[in-house]
C-alpha cells in the first residue's frame, strides 16, 4: 500500500495510460465493457488524486523524479542542476489535477449513455483516457519539454474527439481542422521558446531555469512568444476563433473535458509568468497584457453569445467570456506582484478569485454543456428556435440547467457568486473601471441565459417533442454530482478558499518555494 501511495503522482497518470493502451485489446473481446472499464480506471485515478491532494496540502509539495534511485532525488551527486524529468506537484498543480480528475470521471460516466454503441466506441474511450492523461501531465510536470509532449497528447486527442462525429457530418471535421492548426502552431511556438531557453541556459527544468534566469532580451522574446500562444490555447479573445467551433461540434462530455483542457493551458500560462519569470520580468506590463486579454474576452465573448441561436455555440462564447474573469483576476494579481503592500491588500484576494473561478467555471460550464448535450440527446437539435416546452418532459435537466445558469450568472447561493465577488472587490481597489465592466458582463450573462431558459424550457409542449423523455440514469447521475459540487461550493466558499485556493495562490506567488523543492536550500 505504501508503495502505491509513494508513487501516486505517476499512478494517477500511468493507470489511465495503460488502460488506454489496453482498450483496443479489450474492445476486441467485448465492446460493451469498455465504457465501464474506463470509468472505473478514471475513478481509481480520482481517488489517487484526492489522496495526493491531502498529502500535498498537509505535508507540502510532492516531487517525483523518473528513473532516479529514489523518487525525491532531484540532483545527481556532485551537480547542482537536475538532469531527469520530474513531476513537481504543488498546491496549484493538484488544484488543477482535482478539476481534471473530477471532470474526466464524470465525462466518462456521462458518455456511457450518450455515445452510441457503434464501431468506433472503444476508440472514443481510448481517446478520452488519453486526453485526461495529457491534461494531468501538463499540470503535474516540472519540465518544459515534457510539458510540450503532454500538450501535444492533449491536443491530438482533443482533435480526434472533436472530429469524432465527422464521419456523418462535415462541420466536426472542419472544427477539428481549425483546432488542430491552432494547437500545432501553439505547441511549435512553445517548443521554439523552449529551444531559446535551452540554448541559453542548457536547462529544461522549470525550477532550475527560474533560479538562473536573467531576463535578457532572449528571455523577453521567449515570454513574448509563450504568452500569446498559451492564451490562444486557452481561448482568450483576439485568438478565440477555434473555441466556439470546437466546443459546439464536440460531443457534450468531450466539450466539458475540453473546457478543463483549455484551463490546463491557462494553468501553464500562470505557471510560466509566476513560477518561471516571476518578479524578474516586468510584472506590471505582463499583468496588464493579461488584463487586456481578460477584459476583451469578457466583453466580446458575452456580446457574441447574445446573438447566437445554437445552444452549444452560445455556451461556448460564454466560456470565452468566463475565461476573461480568470485572466482578469490573475492579471491584477500579477500586475501588483512586485509591490508587497498592494499584493497583501488586494493582490492575493484577486488571485484567489481568479484561481477559484477556474474550478467553479469547470464545474458549472461542464454542467451547462451536459444539459445542452441532454437536450441534443433527446431532441436531436441544437437550434434554440426549434426547441420549446421541454420543462414538461425533462424535469431533472431543467433543474440542473437552472442551477448551472444561476451559477454562471453569479447569483448568490451558487459558486459563481463566491469567486466573482472576490474578483469584483479586489479589482475595484486596483482599477474601478475593470470591476464595473466585469459586473456588466455578469448581468449580460444572466440576460443571455434567461433567454435560453425561456426559449428551450418554457412555453407550451410542442407536438414534435411529445415522445421526449428524461435522459438515461448515467447522464442524470453525472449532472447531479456536478450540481451537488456547485451548491456545496456556493454554500461553503470559505472552506474551499482556505484549504484549496489559498495554498494554490501562495504556491504561485512564492517562487522561492517552487525552486527550493527541486534545488534544496539553494
Amino acid at each position, binding site marked *: 500500500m505504501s*508503495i502505491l501511495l509513494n*508513487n501516486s503522482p*505517476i499512478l494517477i497518470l*500511468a493507470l489511465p*495510460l*495503460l488502460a488506454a*493502451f*489496453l482498450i*483496443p*485489446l479489450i474492445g*476486441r473481446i467485448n465492446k460493451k465493457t469498455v465504457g465501464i472499464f474506463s470509468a472505473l480506471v478514471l475513478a481509481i485515478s480520482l481517488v489517487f488524486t484526492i489522496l495526493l491532494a491531502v498529502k500535498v496540502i498537509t505535508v507540502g509539495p510532492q516531487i*517525483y*523524479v*523518473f*528513473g*532516479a*534511485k*529514489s*523518487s525525491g532525488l532531484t540532483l545527481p551527486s556532485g551537480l547542482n542542476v537536475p538532469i531527469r524529468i520530474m513531476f513537481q506537484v504543488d498546491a496549484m498543480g493538484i488544484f488543477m489535477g482535482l478539476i481534471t480528475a473530477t471532470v474526466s470521471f464524470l465525462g466518462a460516466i456521462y458518455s456511457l449513455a450518450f455515445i452510441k454503441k457503434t464501431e468506433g466506441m472503444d476508440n472514443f474511450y481510448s481517446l478520452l483516457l488519453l486526453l485526461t492523461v495529457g491534461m494531468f501531465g501538463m499540470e503535474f510536470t516540472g519540465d518544459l519539454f515534457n510539458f510540450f509532449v503532454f500538450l501535444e497528447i492533449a491536443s491530438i486527442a482533443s482533435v480526434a474527439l472533436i472530429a469524432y462525429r465527422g464521419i456523418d457530418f462535415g462541420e466536426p471535421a472542419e472544427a477539428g481542422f481549425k483546432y488542430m492548426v491552432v494547437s500545432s502552431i501553439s505547441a511549435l511556438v512553445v517548443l521554439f521558446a523552449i529551444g531559446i531557453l535551452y540554448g541559453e541556459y542548457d536547462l529544461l527544468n522549470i525550477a532550475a531555469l527560474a533560479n538562473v534566469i536573467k531576463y535578457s532580451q532572449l528571455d523577453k522574446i521567449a515570454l513574448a512568444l509563450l504568452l500569446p500562444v498559451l492564451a490562444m490555447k486557452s481561448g482568450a479573445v483576439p485568438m478565440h476563433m477555434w473555441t466556439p467551433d470546437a466546443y459546439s461540434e464536440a460531443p457534450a462530455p468531450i466539450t466539458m473535458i475540453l473546457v478543463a483542457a483549455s484551463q490546463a493551458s491557462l494553468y501553464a500560462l500562470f505557471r510560466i509568468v509566476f513560477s518561471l519569470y516571476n518578479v524578474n520580468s516586468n510584472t506590471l506590463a505582463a499583468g496588464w497584457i493579461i488584463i487586456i486579454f481578460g477584459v476583451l474576452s469578457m466583453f466580446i465573448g458575452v456580446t457574441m453569445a447574445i446573438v447566437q441561436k445554437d445552444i452549444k455555440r452560445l455556451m461556448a462564447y460564454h466560456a470565452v467570456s468566463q475565461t476573461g474573469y480568470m485572466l482578469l483576476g490573475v492579471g491584477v494579481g500579477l500586475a501588483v506582484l512586485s509591490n508587497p503592500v498592494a499584493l497583501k491588500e488586494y493582490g492575493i484576494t484577486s488571485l484567489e478569485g481568479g484561481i477559484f473561478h477556474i474550478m467553479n467555471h469547470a464545474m458549472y460550464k461542464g454542467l451547462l454543456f451536459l444539459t445542452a448535450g441532454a437536450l441534443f440527446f433527446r431532441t436531436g437539435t441544437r437550434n434554440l428556435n426549434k426547441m420549446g416546452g421541454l420543462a414538461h418532459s425533462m424535469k431533472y435537466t431543467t433543474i440542473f440547467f437552472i442551477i448551472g445558469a444561476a451559477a454562471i450568472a453569479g447569483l448568490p447561493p451558487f459558486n459563481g457568486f463566491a469567486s466573482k465577488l472576490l474578483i469584483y472587490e479586489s479589482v475595484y481597489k486596483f482599477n474601478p473601471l475593470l470591476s464595473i465592466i466585469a459586473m456588466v458582463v455578469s448581468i449580460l450573462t444572466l440576460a443571455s441565459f434567461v433567454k435560453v431558459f425561456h426559449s428551450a424550457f418554457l412555453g407550451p409542449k410542442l407536438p414534435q417533442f411529445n415522445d421526449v423523455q428524461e435522459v438515461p440514469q448515467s447522464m442524470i447521475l453525472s449532472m447531479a454530482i456536478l450540481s451537488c459540487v456547485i451548491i456545496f461550493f456556493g454554500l461553503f466558499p470559505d472552506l474551499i478558499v482556505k484549504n484549496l485556493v489559498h495554498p494554490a495562490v501562495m504556491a504561485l506567488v512564492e517562487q522561492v518555494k517552487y525552486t527550493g523543492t527541486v534545488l534544496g536550500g539553494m
Partner: protein
Amino acid sequence: MKEMSKIVKTVANFVYGFILIYGFYIIVHGHLTPGGGFQGGAVTASAFALILVSYGSVNSKKFLKKDIFSLFESFGLTLFILLAFSGLGITFFYNFLANYGSWFGDAAVIGVNPGNMNTGGLIPLMNMAVGLEVLSALGVIVLIMAKGAEFTRKKENS
C-alpha cells in the same frame, strides 16, 4: 491505388526482406549504434509502404492486415509501459537491469569500445517494444490513408 507493373512487384518482393532485416537491425542495435526503436520502426514501415504501393491497396490486403497491426501496436505499447512500471519498486522508469549482471546487464567498457550487445539494461528491451509499436502504428496510418484516398477518389468520379 492500382497495382504497378510486374517489374516493380518483382523488385519489391526482392527488396522487402532486406528492408525488414535492416529495420530490425537498427532496432536491436539501438543502444550501440545510431538508431533505435523509432528509426528502425520507420524503416520497417517503409517496407510495408513499398508493398502497398507496388501491389495496390486491394491486392496487398493479403499481406497487410490492419487489425493485426493495431493489435501489435497495443501490444508493443503495453510492453513498453509495463517495462517502465517494472521499475516501480524504486521509481517509474528505473533501469534496474543496467549493470546488474543478468540480461543485458554487463557493465559497458568506459570510453571508446567496439560495443557489447549484452549491455544497456532495459534500453534494448524498450527499443524493441517501441520498434514494434512504431512499425505497426505507421503501418496502420499508411493502410488507412490508402483506404481513405480510395474513398475520396470514388466520390470524385461519381
